[in-house]
């Protein structure tokens, strides 16, 4: 909402700086977001007379001037060569704002204090000249007066105030003035109504019939005859220009002016176009359409409210008038409407048609049903004054069921109970009265709520008013003391942090991506149905991601395009999809590894390309660090290369997958290198984990190590051999490590040699060869039998 200070000052008499007023408004909840000046591009510039000019003690080119401002004399340092005693000049005093927003503050120039600035033409936006100060004509300017330029709009300051949706009463200058009056505790001067009516009774000129009393609780009208449509007077144009409204003609401008003054929307019809001189307020018929005065044709439905004459619709109630009845240069007689419409109804239509107007914004937040007549009279009076109109006698006021003021009881103890304050009844009563809320009683205080404050319906609303006006700074902060006993510990949060700690300890950088991705990314797996957004900002954010991995691939390509192709990244976030018609979301962690292992030693040449085993090792060590036994088994998955893909499961439940990202996939992202990745669900792991590992006593007896190497078929999976060794070795064989795979000399080309280090241990005694040898034989036999393996000697 734009508020002009000149306009505001018509209703209140305050002597306060612009900045101070803005700060005060902000502190009662009317946040001043921006302050702009209109008309002149400077403020705080006054006419002064140079009394004396002395050389600056430390700078040849500067002078130190004594400047009289009539009530005070200022010390000002000036650099212009033409400065001389006796000149009348424009002085930007401390606090002035010049062209380009340049603000004058007290300064020290080469050791001499300066309280202002003598202006050149450039600083005032008159010309580009800035070599010399502007000498003014002593006959035209009076020392001490505010300096202004001829023929410009009156300088004005405009506040852009963010009005919250609960405060429709502040969508006007009078409304904001009422708040200012409350803040400064000064009277509010509401313009008087002084109307001269003709003898022609309005009842003989117009007939009004409300068919939907719910949608239109009040409709009132006046008829103004013989108006002269012309240009608006200068003051009216200035007011409208300040709030960014275009001046059209005197009649239309007056309705807009009263709207911005009182907050009550009005509509002026060309009386002669109103068929049968009848106004009917009714709901639209199915498939009825209407053309608003912006030439847009709208298809209506029975929920939309129309203002009609004897034949047709002439306005979309509370939103916009129609072309068929609008004011034109040839308009002579005016039907002036002032009404109150149901907020929900107006909002519904405005939303559906995408039509937001100054009128609809006010009606849908809640106009004042009892402000209808004042706005009507105010506009009629101005039309008589500025358009020579003759106001017909009387008002037609259809108000079948009066909306009355209501009252709310406020318990002073409750106010302090909620706020943690110690406010007296007097403070509370004073706040209410300043806000034009009348009160009776002391406990409870019964507060009468005028109809312009539809936001005040409950005790809590009035508690808010007390602290809003009295100030949050009157409440002393208090430290919470009692600790509630509750089961607040969230073990899932701890678990996720353990996963994060594992990854950063293993050299992975954490990523955070938007959950919104383009459709092709969300649909990367054909059998996963993505959740799509109905009203996305762009196709790039049309769906929710079904996996985290695609986001990491995006990070790989982003960094690859910036010459960073050696990456280890992970992300924790939610996967979204539709399962059995329901929205499903699950927390998952994904990791990628690509490029070479360049671990800091850029100068060393033993860097190694990451491969499948690298990512598998990460997965295995994650599993180990979390103390969760995850199984990895051969499983084809569309995200991964056929031969380098495994499924990850926990207690036989599949929770993820791992592998070398399929070339077809990385090509879609334009990734040049091989990417190795996995993605697993977090909840099954956090549910399965025992928060505490149980300690196993350290062995008292030494372990015995034996190595075995087998020649086996080159296609045989090493994992299978390890399983057989583990099985046949029993409890005594506590560990099996692969330490060598060998192809080549002495090994047939379709075979490989696999060497294992076996650890044997007993908790009861030191193992002897006699005990281990039979076990070795057993293991060798088993492996040979299972895989047609041959032991290498």
């Amino acid at each position, binding site marked *: 909402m734009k508020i002009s200070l000149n306009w505001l000052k018509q209703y209140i008499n305050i002597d306060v700086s612009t900045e101070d007023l803005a700060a005060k408004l902000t502190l009662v*909840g009317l*946040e001043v977001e921006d302050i702009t000046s209109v008309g002149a591009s400077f403020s705080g510039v006054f006419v002064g007379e140079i009394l004396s000019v002395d050389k600056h003690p430390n700078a040849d080119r500067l002078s130190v001037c004594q400047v009289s401002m009539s009530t005070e004399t200022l010390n000002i340092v000036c650099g212009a060569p033409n400065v001389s005693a006796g000149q009348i000049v424009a002085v930007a005093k401390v606090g002035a704002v010049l062209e380009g927003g340049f603000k004058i503050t007290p300064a020290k120039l080469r050791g001499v204090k300066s309280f202002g600035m003598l202006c050149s033409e450039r600083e005032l936006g008159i010309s580009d000249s800035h070599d010399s100060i502007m000498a003014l004509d002593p006959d035209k300017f009076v020392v001490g007066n505010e300096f202004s330029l001829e023929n410009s709009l009156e300088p004005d300051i405009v506040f852009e105030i963010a009005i*919250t949706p*609960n405060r429709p009463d502040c969508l006007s200058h009078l409304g904001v003035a009422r708040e200012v009056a409350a803040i400064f505790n000064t009277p509010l001067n509401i313009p008087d109504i002084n109307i001269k009516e003709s003898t022609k009774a309005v009842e003989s000129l117009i007939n009004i019939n409300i068919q939907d009393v719910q949608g239109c609780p009040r409709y009132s009208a006046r008829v103004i005859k013989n108006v002269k449509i012309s240009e608006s007077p200068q003051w009216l144009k200035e007011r409208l220009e300040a709030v960014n409204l275009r001046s059209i003609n005197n009649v239309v401008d007056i309705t807009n002016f009263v709207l911005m003054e009182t907050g009550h929307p009005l509509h002026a019809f060309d009386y002669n176009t109103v068929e049968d001189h009848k106004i009917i307020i009714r709901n639209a018929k199915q498939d009825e359409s209407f053309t608003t005065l912006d030439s847009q044709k709208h298809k209506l439905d029975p929920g939309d409210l129309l203002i009609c004459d004897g034949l047709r619709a002439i306005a979309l109630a509370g939103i916009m008038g129609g072309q068929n009845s609008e004011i034109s240069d040839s308009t002579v007689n005016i039907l002036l409407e002032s009404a109150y419409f149901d907020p*929900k109804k107006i*909002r519904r239509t405005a939303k559906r048609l995408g039509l937001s107007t100054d009128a609809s914004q006010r009606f*849908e937040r809640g106009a004042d049903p009892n402000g209808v007549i004042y706005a009507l009279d105010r506009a009629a009076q101005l039309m008589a004054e500025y358009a020579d109109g003759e106001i017909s006698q009387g008002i037609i006021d259809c108000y079948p069921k009066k909306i009355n003021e209501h009252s709310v009881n406020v318990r002073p103890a409750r106010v302090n*109970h*909620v*706020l*943690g304050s110690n406010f007296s009844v007097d403070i509370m009563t004073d706040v209410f009265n300043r806000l034009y809320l009348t009160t009776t009683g002391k406990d409870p205080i019964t507060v009468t709520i005028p109809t312009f404050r539809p936001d005040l319906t409950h005790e*809590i609303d009035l*508690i*808010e008013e007390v*602290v809003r006006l009295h100030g*949050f*700074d009157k*409440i002393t*902060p*208090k430290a919470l003391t*009692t600790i*509630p*006993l*509750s*089961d*607040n510990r*969230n073990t*899932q*949060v701890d678990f996720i942090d353990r996963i994060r700690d594992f*990854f*950063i300890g293993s*050299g992975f*950088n*954490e*990523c*955070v*991506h*938007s*959950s*919104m991705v383009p459709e092709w990314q969300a649909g990367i797996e054909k059998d996963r149905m993505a*959740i*799509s*957004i*109905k*009203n996305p*900002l762009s196709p790039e*954010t049309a769906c*929710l991601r079904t996996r985290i991995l695609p986001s990491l691939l995006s*990070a790989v390509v*982003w*960094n690859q395009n*910036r010459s960073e192709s050696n990456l*280890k*990244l992970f992300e924790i*976030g939610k996967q*979204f999809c539709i399962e059995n018609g329901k*929205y499903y979301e699950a927390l998952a962690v994904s990791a990628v590894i690509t490029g070479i292992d360049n*671990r800091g*030693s850029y*100068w060393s040449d033993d860097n190694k390309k990451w491969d499948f085993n690298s990512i598998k090792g990460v997965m295995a060590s994650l599993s180990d660090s979390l103390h969760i036994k995850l199984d990895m088994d051969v499983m084809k998955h569309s995200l991964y290369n056929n031969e380098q893909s495994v499924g990850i499961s926990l207690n036989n439940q599949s929770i993820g997958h791992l592998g070398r990202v399929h070339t077809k996939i990385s090509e879609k992202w334009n990734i040049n290198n091989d990417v190795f990745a996995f993605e697993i669900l977090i909840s099954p792991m956090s549910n399965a984990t025992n928060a505490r590992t149980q300690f196993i006593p350290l062995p008292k007896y030494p372990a015995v190590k034996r190595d075995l190497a087998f020649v086996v078929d080159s296609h045989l999976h090493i994992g299978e051999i390890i399983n057989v060794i583990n099985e046949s070795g029993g409890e005594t064989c506590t560990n099996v490590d692969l330490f060598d795979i060998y192809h080549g000399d002495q090994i047939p080309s379709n075979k490989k040699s696999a060497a294992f280090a076996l650890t044997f241990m007993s908790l009861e005694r030191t193992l002897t060869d006699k005990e281990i040898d039979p076990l070795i034989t057993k293991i060798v036999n088993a492996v040979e039998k299972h895989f047609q393996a041959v032991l290498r000697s």
Partner: protein
Amino acid sequence: MSENDLIQNVQQTQKEFELALDVAKDAEAIEALRIQYLGRKGCVADLFKSLSTIPSENRKAAGQALNQLKTNLQTALDKKFDNVKNINTSVNEFDVTMPGNWPDFGRLHPLTKVTREIKQIFSNMGFGVADGPEVESEYYNFEALNIPQGHPARDMQDTLFIDEGFVLRTHTSPVQIRTMESKQPPLRIISPGRCYRRDTPDASHSPMFHQVEGLCVDQGITFADLKGVIQNFAQQLFGSDVKIRFRPSFFPFVEPGAEYDFTCLICRGQGCRVCKGTGWVEISGAGMVNPKVFEHVGYDPEKYTGFAFGMGIERIAMLLYGINDIRLFFENDIRFLQQF
């Protein structure tokens, strides 16, 4: 074999030799190469044998090439052998200015770091952590928070809709409702998480962002407690000289509702460009839980009072780290991630 074939073989051998020599690191490996190439049964000897199969009138060029190869190999082997010997003898001259071998370590995302700090501070004040779905029903996102259908307050945030009755949550406030539905007071929780709004991305807006919402409900909780908690938080995160300010505002689920500001971290309240000369930076909204919200979850508004507050994690991180563009958080540029 033709003369040309032989010359090609010579060139091939030269290349293979160079590759092999490159990886030879010690005297032993170099000696092995000498035997492999220049030994009695070495490659070069083989090539000389094949030379003899070519008619003598056509041998001249090939013979020259072969002799050249032999010389090249000998020179290269000798040179490398000397190099290796020198390295071995100069082992005592330890170069401490060589860059160290860094252990492999990664970094937490700055949003994670800030979230951890926030959680820690509130945890010390007795707040637990709660979570809820990001695809949320309109009931939890709006109605239960006193933002009824058809209310102008719905326009305060631009919503991303999924389908009939479902939206991407516009704030983490629905977690309040879910928590109150499942537990009785006393209650102290914060709920960090992702939120979504239909905001066109720019330096200060992102359609996805992170929020922390806090809620405290008990008998006798007041606005003074809210101020105490926010003040304590501000001072723990930004330093003990930080001041807080509350300004009245409107959020349907709290009343009295306020926005709260911290003194500007850059100018410490003196006024600068970051704070547009006001000395304050806006953090987020807070207030006393609206009795209508308590009615939705079946709490007795006469018996219980509570406060709620929110804050944008990106906003806090931007203030803490001096980051000037919110989009940097989600680009995941490694040069950005490795700064934290």
